[in-house]
């Protein structure tokens, strides 16, 4: 990791005439800038932009070999890109800085708002304003004289009706000529908002926990072979930044059989219908083995670790004999499918062949056909006529200098080619159970049999459950915020000189509220209906 020095203090504070703000004031100013919602949104946007180079340049955690190649191919720009960590975008200093600032910004925004909300929850609705008629929604009604409705009774009735409608109410000026009630509802709106923001932090934390303590690895298993969950067993392994080997659940699995069903309907001939991997699995060495079926999108779980089927292919069983007649390599060698008919590339390395190491590069065709130019091609994904088409090489395969190289690649530039289409001995074409003797007595290669393999993705993400919970909470919070209206209502009553009871009411929305007018009508008609009913009952009681 390279460290960049901060610019030396040339443009220091002396040059700039600053208002007297003091270090504490500066800090407070910076903190308020950072925790503003605007900054949070800008950081979120910046995070998205900062992730772009991650898809423009090859990334080390995904494929270090490609990065090394890229730097070799671009000697001018490569090292500079590397210096700015553009090959490690997601763990780079600048990406982490944005992430952490966003984090701090969200927390700094939520905490003061939560405190404010806590206070608001415990406070009473504000007192009734003097002039209700100035409110956006205002209405009056009168109740005829002669009913038993005093202003105090009217306010008590109104308070009860408002309470039924979900308002928090506070009676005021009771006992005076003009008693009133103040009411407020919609506290859930801010609560939902806070839940949303807090849950967003939770999502970020969950992702971070997954990235720190989780791991992901890939493993290719050939039929009849097995795997145990230990680091050296993986073909590739990507631990989290704070990964602890103790997190590896000690499961083991064996691939008994792998079935692929291809569509034989003429319209969609050769399309895969089903992939089924029969596995014998053990949760730990002391547990009893059990049978499991692994399918695409149907992972097998071991505690929090999931095993996914992500690929498959053929592994021809090869025997390579060297120039001294000894077996230099024996066993299945995985080939990589390149298309839907499983035409696959294959690299075979026999570094222990003597006197010279032997390497083979070519194709595996499950069902080989020959076109009019004499070129072999695969015509079916099932192995009806399996064939290996290989070039052979001799020389130093590059394994003896200690640098790990991919098993699927062979750098042939320094090697001597023995077989190829353009060479006098031609390429090697091997059908099932056939043997080819290499030229110059260098050895032989035999195609002994065929197995299938599965490629597994093994993922442990301890933050997954948290991410699900917090995403759900964020969604709930958002829905609550969007569907809850925060409103205040005030109702005041008074007695007219002629004995009528006068009622006036006003409504105020906090924030945008398109249905405030409807709410005013509803409250008005609820009050009218109540007092009409009370009147009728009064009349019946005193005929």
């Amino acid at each position, binding site marked *: 990791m390279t460290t960049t020095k901060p610019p030396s203090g040339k443009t220091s504070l002396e040059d700039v005439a600053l208002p007297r703000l003091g270090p504490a004031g500066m800090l407070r100013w910076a903190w308020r800038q950072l925790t503003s919602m605007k900054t949070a949104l800008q950081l979120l946007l910046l995070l998205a932009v900062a992730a772009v180079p991650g898809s423009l340049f090859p990334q080390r955690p995904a494929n270090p070999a490609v990065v090394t190649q890229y730097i070799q191919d671009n000697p001018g720009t490569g090292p500079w890109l590397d210096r700015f960590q553009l090959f490690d975008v997601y763990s780079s200093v600048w990406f982490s800085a944005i992430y952490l600032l966003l984090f701090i910004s969200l927390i700094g925004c939520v905490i003061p708002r939560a405190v404010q909300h806590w206070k608001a929850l415990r406070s009473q609705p504000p007192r009734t304003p003097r002039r209700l008629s100035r409110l956006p929604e205002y209405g009056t009604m009168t109740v005829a004289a002669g009913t038993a409705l005093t202003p105090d009774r009217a306010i008590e009735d109104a308070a009860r009706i408002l309470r039924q409608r979900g308002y928090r109410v506070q009676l005021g000026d009771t006992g005076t000529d003009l008693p009133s009630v103040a009411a407020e509802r919609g506290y859930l709106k801010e609560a939902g908002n806070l839940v949303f923001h807090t849950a967003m932090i939770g999502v970020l934390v969950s992702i971070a926990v997954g990235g720190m303590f989780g791991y992901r690895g890939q493993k290719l298993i050939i039929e009849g072979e097995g795997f145990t969950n230990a680091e050296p067993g993986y073909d590739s392994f990507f*631990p989290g930044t704070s990964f602890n080997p103790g997190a590896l659940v000690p499961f083991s699995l064996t691939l008994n059989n792998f079935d692929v069903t291809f569509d034989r309907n003429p319209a969609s001939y050769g399309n895969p219908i089903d992939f089924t991997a029969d596995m014998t699995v053990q949760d730990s*060495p002391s547990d009893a083995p059990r049978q499991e079926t692994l399918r695409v999108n149907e992972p097998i779980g071991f505690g929090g670790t999931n095993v996914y089927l992500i690929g498959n292919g053929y592994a021809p069983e090869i025997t390579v004999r060297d120039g001294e007649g000894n077996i230099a390599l024996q066993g299945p060698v995985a080939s990589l499918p390149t298309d839907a008919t499983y035409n696959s590339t294959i690299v075979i390395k026999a*570094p222990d062949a003597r006197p010279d190491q032997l390497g083979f590069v070519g194709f595996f065709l499950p069902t080989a056909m020959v076109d009019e130019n004499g070129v072999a091609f695969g015509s079916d994904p099932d192995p009806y006529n399996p064939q290996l088409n290989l070039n052979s090489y001799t020389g130093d395969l590059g394994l003896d200098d200690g640098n790990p190289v991919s098993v699927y690649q062979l750098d042939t530039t320094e090697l001597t080619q023995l077989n190829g289409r353009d060479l006098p001995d031609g390429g090697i074409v091997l059908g099932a159970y056939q043997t080819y003797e290499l030229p110059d007595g260098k050895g032989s290669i035999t195609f002994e049999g065929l197995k299938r393999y599965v490629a597994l993705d093994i993922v442990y993400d301890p933050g997954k459950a948290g991410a699900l919970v917090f995403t759900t909470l964020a969604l709930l919070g958002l829905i609550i915020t969007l569907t809850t209206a925060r409103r205040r209502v005030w109702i005041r009553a008074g007695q007219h000189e002629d004995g009528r009871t006068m009622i006036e009411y006003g409504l105020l929305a906090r924030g945008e509220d398109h249905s405030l007018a409807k709410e005013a009508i509803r409250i008005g008609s609820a009050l009218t209906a109540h007092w009409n009913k009370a009147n009728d009952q009064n009349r019946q009681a005193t005929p």
Partner: protein
Amino acid sequence: MKLSLLNRRQAAAAAVFASLLLSGCAAEDPLAEKVNAGTNSYVAGDGSVAEYAEGIRGETVRFSGQLFDGTTVTDDDWAGKVTVLNVWYAACAPCRVEAPDLSALHADFEPQGVQFYGINTRDEAATASAFERSFGIEYPSFKDKNGQILLALTDYVPPQAVPTTLVLDKEGRVAARILGIADKSTLEAIIEDALAAPDPGKP
């Protein structure tokens, strides 16, 4: 959106939290190190050596496994002896670099009763013996293509790379672990230390 000013206590709490986050991030990054160690997404070690002093060694390593020749070897076989376990496979480039040194150390220490076992994680018998022929390896290897021995070792000091070399003391406890290519003189010194310790049976 309006924010109220933070009071002092909140600001202090936020500062503590932020510094925790930052310090968590500034710690060494094993992922980057591991990835930078190899040019392939391949579990390669960095040659790091971990030695365990007498007092902090774990339990006696117990497992049984089959050698390529079919012999079953159990932990009884290393009772009272210093044992070297080496995780390898034939196409593993770093394994091929350290193989001559392991072969030489085996020749040096076998007369003193030190046992060497390979743990082969990937190869069939014929491929493994071609490797042994190439490098003149005289000691036997476990066939561990299914990883059962690797799994058993995770209870003690887990091999975290190929190659990994473990040295067991005379009580069968892990005395040292080398991840990646074992340096000959380092391994030699570790084996000598283990040999110098008194026999557990004879105080």
